[in-house]
């Protein structure tokens, strides 16, 4: 029997005890996987934001409007490569509970600024520019509602009404937007700003925010300062910042999610460290005599150390890996219902890697003291003890 076989036999000698430890480790890693996945998805806006993209919003708050005339004035600023704008629509489908992200955008420039993030075929893009009542829908949203190109759907707004009193707008779906990678959220819909502005009952000629791409990230500061200085002391002052800073501040508005995740995962790990650590110590103590026998047979201290540490690492991996797998299943099951809060909710390869490192760390911490004790054990004491 090789050393690995010995570790396995030792670990499962008391089946109930081993199973219970595996369950508690499994649960801790399941919690880790789900929460780490949530945290990453929740903050994905920040990670995804391109470093050369800036947002200009009303200085009072980003919910306050800006005049559409700012588009042409900002376009002329040196260092601005691409510029577009959008307006929040407050959309919902059929029932106000079916809230969805719907934006009125400038169809020609919007996809220039987001060309690295979103994929739309040239035909679809042309159709979106041409058709006044056309809308393009993100893949995730289209899948959720079963929409396809050619469908005509009514979308209501909880903010705007049409001049004719209607609360909903009819859109023809002319394209499906694909994300350039899995991390890109596509749970949204875009339609023509021109159509929106002509039909809405108030707020004409105002926009929500502008998004611009600078020639290089080195220009960011200068461009932002120039824009904000241009509108200083006007009735609509602006605040220009990187998309990253903007996403980060917005995520922070919900509360200190990082701290909550850290505390819960921390509590789960302290629990298993204590349970597994104590149990490992107990089970090695019970085996004192056997370790004495192994040493008598010529097993070196180092080999004994490796055997015990190997056992605790094996235990951590046997519990931890299925825990991460279950976390992956849970995130997959919740992905659609959490699409608005945490897009692309998943246990990513990085999280899995962190998890495995944590498992090895856990195995090391819980096994090291019993292993050192076993290594230093004197044969006479071991065989002498009851």
């Amino acid at each position, binding site marked *: 029997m090789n050393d690995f076989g010995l570790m396995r036999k030792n670990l499962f000698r008391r089946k109930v005890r081993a199973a219970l430890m595996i369950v508690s480790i499994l*649960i801790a890693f399941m919690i880790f996987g789900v929460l780490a996945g949530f945290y990453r998805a929740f903050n994905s806006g920040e990670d995804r934001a391109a470093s050369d993209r800036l947002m200009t919003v009303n200085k009072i708050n980003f919910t306050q409007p800006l005049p559409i005339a700012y588009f042409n004035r900002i376009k002329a600023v040196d260092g601005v490569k691409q510029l577009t704008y959008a307006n929040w629509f407050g959309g919902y489908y059929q029932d106000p509970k079916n809230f969805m992200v719907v934006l009125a955008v400038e169809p020609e420039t919007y996809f220039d600024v987001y060309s690295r993030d979103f994929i739309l075929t040239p035909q679809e893009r042309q159709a979106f520019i041409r058709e006044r009542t056309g809308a393009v829908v993100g893949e995730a949203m289209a899948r959720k509602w079963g929409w396809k190109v050619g469908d005509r759907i009514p979308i209501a707004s909880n903010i705007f009404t049409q001049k004719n009193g209607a609360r909903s707008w009819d859109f023809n779906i002319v394209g499906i937007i694909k994300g350039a990678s899995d991390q890109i959220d596509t749970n949204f819909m875009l339609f023509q700003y021109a159509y929106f502005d002509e039909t809405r009952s108030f707020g004409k000629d105002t926009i929500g925010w502008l998004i611009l791409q600078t020639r290089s990230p080195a220009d960011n500061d200068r461009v932002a300062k120039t824009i904000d200085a241009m509108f200083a002391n006007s*009735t609509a002052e602006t605040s220009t910042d990187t998309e990253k800073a903007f996403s980060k501040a917005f995520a922070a508005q919900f509360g200190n999610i990082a701290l909550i995740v850290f505390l819960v995962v921390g509590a789960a790990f*302290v629990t298993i460290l*204590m*349970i597994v650590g104590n149990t490992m110590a107990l089970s090695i103590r019970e085996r004192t005599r056997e370790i004495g026998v192994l040493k008598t047979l010529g097993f070196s201290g180092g080999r004994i150390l490796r055997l015990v540490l190997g056992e605790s690492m094996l235990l951590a991996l046997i519990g931890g890996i299925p825990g991460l797998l279950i976390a992956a299943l849970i995130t997959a099951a919740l992905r659609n219902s959490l699409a608005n809060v945490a897009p692309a909710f998943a246990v990513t390869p990085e999280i899995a890697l962190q998890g495995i490192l944590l498992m090895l760390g856990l195995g090391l911490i819980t096994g090291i003291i019993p292993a050192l004790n076993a290594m230093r054990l004197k044969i006479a004491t071991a065989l002498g003890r009851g």
Partner: protein
Amino acid sequence: MRSLFLQVIAVTAINLKSISQRRWLSLSTVIAVALVVVVLLAFLAMANGFQRTIAGSGAQDIAIVLRAGSQAEINSTVSRDQVHLIEDGPGIARGADGKPLISPELYLVVDGLKRTTQTKANLPLRGIGDQGATLRQGIRISSGRMFNRGSNEVVVGKGLVREFAGFDLGSTVAFGATRWTVVGIFDAEGSVFESEIWADLPVVQSLFNRNNVFQTIRARLTGPAALADLKKFSDDDPRLKLDVKSEAEYFAEQASQTSDLIQKLGWPLAIAMALGALAGALNTMYSSVAARATEIATLRAIGFGGFPAFVGTLVESLALAALGGILGAAATYFIFDGVSASTLGGNFTQVVFDFKLSPALIGQGLGMALVVGLIGGLFPALRAARMPIVAGLYG
């Protein structure tokens, strides 16, 4: 019967006294259960605190009028004509001077700096009518004074001052190009209004270029029953495409979404952690039974029944879990109770609230601890009761 009772007492006492022999394993179970209870109670206290802040804000005899389908004040728009129509509507109380007790309001979102993170956050700036402050329960200026009509002065809620920088009494705040002076800080019995900034409605309308735009109307009703009359009046008039709700109803809807979400996160996490702690408890109790195998067998040999062994083990497990539960509840109380926090509420602005434990929540936490203790003790207790005497004596 009496002898069985005495046997149970004797064995239980032995069990409890022997805990010190397994102190580390027992301690790990106690701490594991305590941590589960802390996680559960922290989430429940958060949901409860949020719920109390929002739901405590609404009165039954105040009507809030919004544009139909707008759901939240921030989305609503109401025209001047609609304000006049509602003013003369049925069921609206009138003051001594015969004027209707209503407050047309404008609800804007402005930026503030959150003290803890130093990031921008959405704060509500409310332009209120003459009656605005009197239409809300328990508003009291705790320092400074009320703003003067027609001036760019604001009063701020004390919750907002606590969580966000730059709103201290006497300071000047800038919203875009406009400058405002903080002349008073108000107390609102812990309601959501303590997270708001208030100013005179016509001043807000003019400085924010929203002349003749209103978002909501608050009105004092002649009584809670008058709500139905006002609703019917609004529904029957085609010029009034409005939703009429009691303030209590409106805030209850606003509170439920967020506090439901917090509870939906807290319970599954606590249950998952409880399963982990349960594995620990089972482990401890099986070890306890194994360690006392000789002792149990000896007792059986001198005539004790299996039942006392069962009860003794179960009580030991329940005692450890109860201790963990009490520790967890106490830790939650000392660490989290009263902690101030803020999050984005239904109106897309920050709501400041305190974590708030209640006896009912502590009961839920202890209940969860005892369930862990009960299940964690049950199977080892059965093993103790069924242990063959001979095996135990030679084990």
